[in-house]
């Protein structure tokens, strides 16, 4: 556990030593801010109160397209530069390494997510009698667990490639597929369609969390997906010893 924390701490600090993290954070905040203003203007024009989840705005979409940049280097860079050999000959276990890296990536993305807190405060000022914070909490928890599984997917893909760009695009493609895989099977009967519909990421987020409902099924879905990808990444790193 101690090693996990050591790895996570280093990895998290490294985000602030490279320009990628700043670029990603900047792009996130710029687009989020722009759309937030848009939402407010729209709400003002139609006279109704803005939705509580306006603070999250396009966050999901941005995560899908930009979060691969946060995970792409985690293992790819270590493989390319050979530092993985250093870590794997130090007395640490593979899962500590994998979970540590995941925790750092998750922490960094969570930091960006929490920066939307400023919009929550602004919204709270604009609306009367204020926001329903319970609803908002559910949306944020849902966002966090979903981010966790996307980061886990990114860690796994990064462990497959020694090229960051490859890791980036494969992660993005995988995330998008998970997002839209229900496109064909929508409203189709049968066990297969049901299964695929169950896999769809967006359903698990939008159906409940985004509407302010905390749903244990969706929560479990994201947590088990994170566990699965982290397990696969661990096996992948371990397999380096055997090949």
């Amino acid at each position, binding site marked *: 556990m101690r090693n996990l924390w*050591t790895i996570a701490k280093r990895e998290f600090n490294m985000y602030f030593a490279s320009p990628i993290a700043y670029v990603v954070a900047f792009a996130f905040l710029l687009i989020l801010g722009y759309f937030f203003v848009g939402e407010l203007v729209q709400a003002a024009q139609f006279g109704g109160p803005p939705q509580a989840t306006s603070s999250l705005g396009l966050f999901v979409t941005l995560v899908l397209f930009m979060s691969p940049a946060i995970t792409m280097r985690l293992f790819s860079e270590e493989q390319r530069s050979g530092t993985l050999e250093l870590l794997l*000959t130090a007395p640490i276990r593979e899962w500590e390494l994998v979970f540590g890296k995941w925790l750092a990536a998750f922490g960094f993305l969570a930091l960006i997510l929490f920066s939307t807190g400023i919009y929550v405060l602004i919204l709270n000022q604009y609306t009367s009698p204020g926001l329903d914070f319970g609803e908002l909490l559910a949306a944020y928890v849902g966002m966090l667990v979903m981010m966790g599984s996307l980061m886990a997917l990114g860690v796994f893909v990064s462990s497959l490639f020694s090229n960051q760009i490859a890791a980036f695009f494969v992660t993005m493609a995988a995330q998008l597929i998970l997002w839209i895989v229900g496109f064909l099977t929508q409203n189709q009967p049968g066990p297969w369609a049901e299964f695929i519909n169950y896999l769809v990421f967006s359903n698990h987020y939008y159906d409940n969390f985004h509407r302010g409902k905390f749903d244990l099924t969706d929560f479990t879905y994201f947590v088990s997906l994170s566990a699965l990808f982290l397990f696969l990444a661990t096996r992948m790193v371990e397999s380096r010893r055997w090949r």
Partner: protein
Amino acid sequence: MIQVENLTKRYGERVAVNNLTFHANKGEIVGFLGPNGAGKTTTMRILTGYMPPNEGKAIVAGFDTLTESLEVRQRVGYLPENVPLYPEMTVVQYLDFMAELRHLPKREDRVDEVMELVHIAERADSYIGNLSKGLRQRVGLAQALLHKPEVLIMDEPMDGLDPQQQLAVKQLIRDIGKDQTVMLSTHILAHAQELCHRVIIINKGQIVVEDSPERLNSQIAGGGRIHLTVEGDGTGLLENLQALPGLAGVRAVTDGQFLIETLPGADARPAIARAVISGGWNLLELQREKASLEEIFLQLTKEEIAQQTEQADDDDTAEQET
């Protein structure tokens, strides 16, 4: 400290390490010599627990590298080839990180100590990416020494260092080798000759020869060449020399100059000198050309050299991929 038995490692079809057996004792510096792609790096990676062998076993610091890998890794310091480091960290950040991974008590003190040891303290806050090759090598070495390892394994520790730095690193290795076990690989034979108590020459994953550098010199390459110069044209001396026992061949180079090849074993110079003097010639020069480890090495790996150079490129890529 290191006990290797029948170690075999294959990458697909290619056998990188073939039935290797050797050992290294406490307080011993063992040199691992061989052409590129001979299996040096692979063997070291097995010893450090980075990869398992296909067959055989390796006991390092009393633990099996396969079944007790964590125990081994706690006791081994490793300097990988090309010294992989994090360029975006400062020297002290990096060493502190590695010390934390190793759960060292009084981490900061130990990091300072090690930086003093390898003379990198004045660059403690420099980013590793900005350091020269020699300095990076020292950072790698500092990392390997952090936890006072019982066994220190270094892959090409002298690579890319200038002569002065090499001298410093050699001295450091000698100091460490007094009470720890050091295993280093090199393709520069002079280094092995100078540093190591024992030299293991491997080629194509197999041990070609294993002995102390001195004994290798005297036994295998005891046969050497002697240059002889006498006053005048030395007519008739050739026959006298050819009559002497223990020589492999004699030929006249120019007037008064001879090249004598000797067999391994006794020194033939006194006999030659006597033959020259008693024959009435004036001896001007008698010089033995000592065969170096370099020649032994070339001799031992001779047949393979041609194929090896062809293979070397594939081998390098194959090893890097793993």
